[in-house]
């Protein structure tokens, strides 16, 4: 039984909660966040179900580190490479933030594929979640395009020639390919405009599209709920497995569970 809080304690609590109440009364945001965070999920979700939020976390890391990298990066053909060297070697913790962004990009892509594999193998793309699979595929394509545009930005030999090859692969698409390639290059040849164009795509257009798609993806997740794993007896119409008694550390006596009789108080 909870101990009754002292008046002073209650007063402090009210004071602490006042701003939240103020916000909730005027916006309903607190309730919205609570609804999002504490919504019901099936009892037999597992660690596999965390791959989606892991992907989201990787994306947020990219967002945060990318915004800060943009403060030091110079998207100009004559200074791009030097500015990346400057970030890596001179700026305080620049090596760390750039490293997070560089390796985090791979983590993001890998997690997207793992999440996709989980959804596929669990059959979580089936009715009524087909649309969310489609949005997810768009997210994958957009995420890969984000990787492609980001790869040019260090502007070293690898970046340059990898982009040449990537754009020319686009150019071999039937009928529209040559025009796609010119559009990506910003002209017939790779030039100063290509770098600025890729930078703009990489930090404004594509992340904006990603954010919008992620919002739609999450909305559908919340609206449709998380699916049970394929082995779930609950989802198959069976009885939910009895919950094991909550684990308690040694000295604390477990509380009697509802419906269990004959236990001493």
């Amino acid at each position, binding site marked *: 039984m909870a101990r009754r809080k002292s008046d002073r304690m209650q007063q402090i609590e009210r004071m602490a909660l006042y701003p939240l109440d103020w916000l909730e009364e005027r916006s309903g945001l607190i309730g919205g966040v609570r609804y999002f965070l504490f919504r019901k999920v099936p009892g037999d979700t597992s660690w596999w179900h965390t791959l989606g939020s892991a992907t989201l976390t990787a994306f947020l890391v990219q967002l945060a580190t990318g915004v800060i990298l943009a403060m030091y990066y110079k998207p100009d*053909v*004559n200074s791009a490479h030097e500015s990346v060297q400057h970030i890596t070697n001179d700026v305080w913790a620049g090596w760390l933030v750039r490293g997070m962004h560089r390796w985090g990009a791979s983590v993001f892509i890998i997690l997207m594929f793992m999440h996709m594999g989980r959804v596929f193998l669990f059959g979580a793309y089936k009715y009524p979640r087909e649309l969310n699979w489609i949005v997810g595929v768009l997210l994958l394509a957009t995420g890969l395009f984000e990787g492609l545009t980001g790869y040019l930005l260090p502007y070293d030999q690898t970046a340059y*020639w990898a982009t*040449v*090859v990537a*754009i*020319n*692969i686009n*150019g*071999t698409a*039937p*009928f529209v*390919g*040559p*025009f796609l*390639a*010119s*559009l990506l*290059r*910003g*002209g*017939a*040849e*790779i*030039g*100063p*405009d290509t*770098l600025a164009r890729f930078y703009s795509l990489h930090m404004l257009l594509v992340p904006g599209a990603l954010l919008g798609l992620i919002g739609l993806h999450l909305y559908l997740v919340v609206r449709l709920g998380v699916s049970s794993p394929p082995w779930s007896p609950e989802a198959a119409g069976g009885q939910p497995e009895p919950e094991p008694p909550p684990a308690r550390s040694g000295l604390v006596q477990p509380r009697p569970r509802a419906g269990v009789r004959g236990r001493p108080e």
Partner: protein
Amino acid sequence: MDDPRGDMERHESPPSLWPVGAIGAALVAVCGFLWARDVVRGGRATTVATAPPLEEGRAPGAPPIPADKGEAAMPEPAPGERFPRNVFLENATLGLGAIIGGVVTLPVIGFAVMPAFLKQHSHEVDLGPISNFQEGQYVVATFLREPSQGEVSRRTAFIRNNGLLHGKPSFTCISNRCAHLGCPVQPGGPTFDDKSKTVKTPSGQVSLIPSLPAAGFICPCHGGTYDQEGNRIAGPPVRGLDRFEFWIRNGNLILGNTYSVAQVTGTGANAEIKRYTLTGPGQHVDGIESWLYPLQPPH
């Protein structure tokens, strides 16, 4: 010479404002006509201001009937019924929104897309006196295609002086852009750096390095291999290497645009080259596969 007062070029005059005035005059004319018509008809204000007719069966001076007791001023619309004014306002809102959206969006999209396709021309490049090119010897010429862009426009051509053909100098000018996916192909043999020359030409500095591509030209990316005429002999490329147009002006070798080549027959001065418009790497210029690429953006 820099003029501190600014450049002495003639600038274009600013855009004329007369269309704005014309549109304004048209608006004034239309609105004025409508206003004048209303005034001539005696004005609508008088009809609006007349007292509403008394409700039937109600004595003058009697207390007003409460709204919930009296009859509705207007019959309830049937479900789904729309009023012309309502429909007009809805369409006007959507239409105006579409027009405003288009006026704002289309120029921005054009700004993003069109420069990639307009004014795509390459400058001619002066490689210096042809006496620098020894007959029968390949030279790796490196130059800036677009000096105002700087290093990013650095390109390489493989130039070979083929001697005279019908009394005119003949050159083989091969682009180093691989016909697979655009990596820079390298001469398959030694380059003689100790004999390299840097020539100052009207197109800036040009570096000329003699080379002996005994094995033709080889791409470091995916192993495309070409012979000394630029014909594909192995690997993934779909055609031969592109070539430069060239001509000779005042004894200097000038490179022009590049064009694509499927296959060259013959060698050196006697090579027969069928010229195709410049096509991106990885795209066929002849055969049935070329039907996949009917149109090329301006190069």
